[in-house]
């Protein structure tokens, strides 16, 4: 609002504006653009593109006990694609993605709609309270939930003990993936909610008034106006969730100290790449595993893009 008025004021003050615009597209100004983007692009190339190329290069070699490193072509990739540990890990994070992400996004969506509806008292308290876990480091969240799950002084075990029931075995192999999903849901629902809420605030309010005139209630308005308007924001949340789920590392890695027999070195692809590189000293193989994981993420993200694009067209 204030920006618009300054703009108009300046327009009145600067009659030679159109002339300036012609000059602005000229060579001297355009080339200054390179100077503005150069620092970012330099760091981007050095810290992102270069390591990526180096990983691709490394993944094509193999270390031998005698004779050093030799060119191996795609051998590391064929090895990974037939490595049951790697494939199990990919399958596990895919399952995690299919179950955890819809639950998290539905909770985030419901919370954002409720807070935006105006039917809630103290909406601000809810908004900030639900968002707060995002500011908690993943390490702390995992340790905390690990203790909450635990049989020694976790409140769940304490309550079960008081009621004379058997304590739920959150850290057993049957429950572990669900327990991890709960930790991740706890950490990131608020972040997704804030993105969705921010997008909701931008929906033009005359749309709501038109809907009210047509006799639409709060739920009808949410379903027919708000959720369609949220599609781009939901897409952003979904893409970030793909990346987060497939890269899962800290949570399982830290739970490992509490349940070493449940979480093995191939529990997630990232845990596998890490153990291959740093305990197995198989750097070349680890590079191939990370690269394949990156490829999986790009493919899944692209699939998500296609599905959501088709939905919004129909």
């Amino acid at each position, binding site marked *: 609002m204030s920006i618009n008025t300054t703009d108009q004021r300046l327009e009145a003050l600067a009659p030679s504006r159109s002339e300036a615009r012609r000059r602005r597209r000229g060579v001297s100004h355009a080339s200054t653009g390179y100077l503005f983007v150069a620092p970012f692009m330099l760091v981007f190339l050095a*810290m992102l593109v270069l390591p990526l190329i180096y*990983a691709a290069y490394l993944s094509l070699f193999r270390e031998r006990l005698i004779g050093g490193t030799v060119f191996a072509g795609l051998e590391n990739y064929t090895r990974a694609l037939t490595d049951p540990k790697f494939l199990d890990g990919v399958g596990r994070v895919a399952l995690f993605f299919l179950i955890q992400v819809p639950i998290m996004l539905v909770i985030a969506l419901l919370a954002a709609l409720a807070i935006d509806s105006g039917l809630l008292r103290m909406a601000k308290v809810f908004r900030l309270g639900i968002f707060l876990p995002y500011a908690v480091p993943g390490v702390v969240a995992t340790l905390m939930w690990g203790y909450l799950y635990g049989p020694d*002084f976790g409140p769940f075990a304490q309550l079960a003990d008081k009621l004379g029931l058997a304590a739920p075995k959150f850290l057993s192999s049957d429950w572990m993936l669900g327990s991890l999903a709960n930790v991740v849901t706890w950490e990131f629902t608020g972040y997704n909610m804030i993105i969705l809420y921010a997008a909701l605030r931008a929906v033009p309010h005359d749309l709501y008034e038109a809907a009210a005139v047509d006799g639409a209630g709060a739920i009808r308005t949410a379903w027919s106006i708000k959720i369609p308007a949220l599609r781009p924001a939901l897409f952003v949340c979904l893409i970030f969730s793909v990346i987060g789920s497939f890269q899962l590392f800290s949570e399982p890695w830290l739970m490992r100290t509490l349940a070493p027999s449940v979480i093995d070195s191939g529990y997630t692809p990232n845990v596998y790449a890490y153990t291959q590189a740093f305990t197995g000293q198989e750097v070349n193989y680890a590079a191939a595993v990370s690269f394949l994981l990156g490829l999986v993420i790009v493919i899944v993200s692209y699939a998500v893009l296609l599905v959501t694009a088709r939905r919004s067209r129909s």
Partner: protein
Amino acid sequence: MRERRNNVLTIGMVVMLIYFLLPLFWLFVASTKTVGDLFSSFGLWFSDDFSLLSNIRDTVSTNSWVFSRWMGNTILYAVVSAGGAAFLCALGGYGFAKYRFRGNGSMFGLVLGAIMVPTTALAIPTYLLFSKAGLVNTPWAIILPSLVSPFGLYLMRIYAQDAVPDGIIEAARIDGAGEFRIFFQVALRMLAPGIVTVVLFTLVATWNNYFLPLIMLNNPDLYPVTLGLAQWSSQASAGGGTTGAVLSLVITGSFLSVIPLIAAFLLLQRYWQSGLASGGVKA
């Protein structure tokens, strides 16, 4: 009718709020307890012996103040990375939004595509490159990779597009201001909410980072607090009953480590919420 729906909705949201806040409440309660009470009293309420202050004293000063050191390291890494990343993003986002140079679209597209590159896939090759350059086990090993934020650049570009009107840039040019002077003296102030957003989210990413320091650092004096707490926790669970004292350090340390970020988010909410709004809408 309307009033009733209101209450049902409020009750549902209260349940949700309890789920999100109860673990933090537990953490606070647990950090007020002695090790004995931790095991013997109910987890979700205080025991008679309120020993928060002595727990804090023990945590920060144990092992010749190593926890304080970790907190200091985290603050250093997070503040330098977030400040640097936000500056690069503001400069670059403004450049991409306001200048039409050759390769603008393709370079920006390259950066956008990189949002999908898993950062953990980069960590292992970055480690190998850094170990050749002698940067492993130095603060730079954490700070340099954290300076790149493709999403931050994307956010700043969108933000700069609307927040800095072309008319103002042109008027400043007519007044004879140079391009960088326009950026620093005119545009930067208008970009402030966007910059705060990028700062906060990079701050969180670096503050919470665990994988990168795990790979890059093996000198405990350089650990950030996440790595330090993870190390303490594995000591606590490895040692069994005799290491109860370490357990109390992990819990109180965890509690202390979450306070600064929560405070930052609460204090700066006006800025990051408006900054995020523009990113979420246009995405």
